[in-house]
């Protein structure tokens, strides 16, 4: 009824293989993109930008990155927070060292630097796998946070040990610093999210993505059929860290404005992004967005409900939030290991047949 593909015939492989093979999906996607780019910037206000939209967009990039590594290539990483810190500090150093170059280039370069760091820490994945590797990536997390805390060069010898984003403009609009308007910040993040999702989608359905999935499903078998585990694993680490680095750079420069490494990029950030990936759906681009939206929106809603409506103390609401997050993780792992993305797929299937049950 609502969701149909009848009459949507493909006459070429090209049509069949595109990202949104169903016409309704394609138009829906264009519509969402149109609204996001044309309508939202005009109605956005500070609250929506800082509480919902900016974190959603930024975490969506991180979640895409981790999903490539964990969902597509099967390498569990708990070092996401550390890699986000690399992105943040890289963009900070670049911003302060080369003030004349556009911040957009800095952010991309920060992603590149993070990719290299990610590959370095991904090297052990050739020898160890599974949760041994998950624990090994904690080494990256703790070492990087310690490094940025202890070496003053990274925070330009500032007295507080914090890094603060100076004002930088894109086409004359301030996107970082206190003068930046919510719409400008939002549009920059949106551009990077679009880019990231586009790259991720096209990588994962091409040859590289198939290699990653072969490694994920059974690495030894993949090696036998001719997938080079070295390049497959390291490319997954590289691409994943590239996205995570961009998201860290945006989180620091555009969203937070100032950051202290232990607070902003601690181990909790790693888990947060991992939860986004699990709840959203491992191995799904849509899932990365759904998971990020869920993990960003849920605390806001809970806080509004518990603190705003019921008048409970804030700390109690925070603990209940922890419980709900934990319970949801377990719930999703038991009931729907493919996460929200799978639920969405089920809804679509039901809608296709509606009103007939079979």
């Amino acid at each position: 009824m609502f969701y149909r593909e009848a009459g949507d015939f493909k006459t070429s492989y090209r049509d069949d293989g595109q990202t949104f093979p169903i016409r309704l999906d394609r138009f829906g996607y264009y519509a969402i993109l149109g609204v996001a780019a044309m309508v939202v910037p005009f109605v956005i206000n500070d609250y929506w930008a800082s509480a919902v939209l900016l974190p959603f967009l930024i975490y969506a990039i991180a979640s895409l990155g981790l999903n490539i590594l964990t969902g597509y290539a099967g390498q569990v990483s708990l070092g996401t927070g550390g890699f986000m810190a690399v992105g943040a500090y890289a963009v900070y150093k670049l911003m302060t060292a080369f003030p004349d170059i556009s911040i957009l280039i800095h952010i991309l370069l920060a992603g590149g630097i993070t990719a290299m760091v990610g590959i370095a820490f991904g090297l052990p994945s050739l020898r160890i796998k599974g949760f041994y590797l998950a624990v090994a990536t904690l080494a990256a997390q703790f070492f990087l946070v310690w490094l940025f805390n202890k070496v003053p060069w990274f925070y330009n010898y500032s007295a507080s040990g914090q890094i603060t984003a100076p004002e930088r403009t894109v086409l004359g609009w301030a996107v970082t610093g206190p003068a930046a308007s919510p719409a400008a910040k939002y549009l920059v993040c949106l551009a990077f999210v679009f880019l990231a999702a586009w790259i991720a989608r096209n990588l994962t359905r091409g040859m590289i993505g198939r290699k990653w999935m072969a490694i994920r499903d059974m690495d030894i078998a993949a090696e036998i059929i001719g997938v080079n585990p070295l390049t497959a694993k390291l490319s997954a680490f590289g691409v994943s860290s590239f996205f995570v680095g961009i998201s860290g750079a945006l989180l620091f420069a555009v969203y937070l404005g100032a950051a202290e490494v232990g607070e902003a990029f601690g181990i909790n950030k790693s888990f947060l992004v991992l939860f986004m990936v699990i709840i959203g759906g491992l191995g799904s681009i849509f899932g990365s967005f759904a998971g990020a939206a869920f993990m960003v929106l849920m605390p806001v809603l809970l806080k509004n409900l518990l603190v705003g409506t019921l008048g409970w103390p804030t700390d109690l609401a925070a603990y209940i939030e922890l419980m709900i997050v934990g319970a949801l993780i377990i719930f999703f792992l038991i009931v729907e290991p493919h996460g929200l993305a799978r639920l969405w797929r089920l809804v679509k299937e039901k809608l296709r047949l509606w009103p007939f049950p079979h």
Partner: protein
Amino acid sequence: MMDQLIFSAEVFLNGLMTGVMYSLVALGFVLIFKASGVFNYAQGVLALFAALTLVGIMDGQVPFRHLINAMFGTHLENFGWTVGPVLAILLTAGVMVILAILIEKLVLQHLVGQEPIILFMATIGLAYFLEGLGDVMWGADIKTLDVGLPQGISETIEQVTANWFGYGFFIDRLDIWATIIAALLVAALVAFSQYTKQGRAMRAVADDHQAALSVGISLQFIWIMVWSIAGFVALVAGIMWGTKSGVQFSLSLIALKALPVLMLGGFTSIPGAIVGGLIIGVGEKLFEFWIGPLVGGATENWFAYVLALIFLVFRPQGLFGERIIERV
């Protein structure tokens, strides 16, 4: 030069003691991993939860008082009684058993046969849930825990070493007691898993769930038993760490320290947990003492991980771990 050596010796001894504490937490991991193939990230939070419950019972706190107060506008605080340490420990052990049963019924039962990494992530969820539950139940303020374990500097050792080297070593008496208790606990656990029927059943389950089921071992019972034991080990670890540094959130982070210990020792080996704990404990203290000042200190945060990581690259199964054989 002589001074340096003596200082190093003291640091070494203190490292050994810390290592024992790490081993205590790591033991809980190994037990669960051996028996169910579950890598239990929640072990540290279990220790925190046990310590919180112990303090709560000892002080006669009303469970969930903050929640009840917020929901009904009441002002509940304490029941008004206090419970002795021994009884409180027994009661807490009871709570841990109930928790084990609940975890088995609500979580693990539904995840039989899933991949290890899925189980691992489920325990991360469990850790978050328990952390929230512990805070909602007992409040998140820092609590002191005193079950009557001796604390403070050990004068005897200071005296003896002062006579020998002319410099008194500073060793906390609590650490000595922790070492003794840990040794007893390990002996008991090894004996249990080697010489009793349940222990054998436990090892059978660890080897192969399906095969164990088919020879009539109740998976459910074994899992509840193992999680209860792990809860008990968590309680002991919680008592030690809680007495040492207060019952607070950071307690659950020692679990993160236990992970490299396990990677070093091998996930399936009880001796591995002990040796790994000692190596990490001594290693990080000595590294901090020798190299720390050169690089700005606080190397303890990452040394254990990096050491374990480097070690794993050369020996992926850890010191005492079983060799991983993979076939297509």
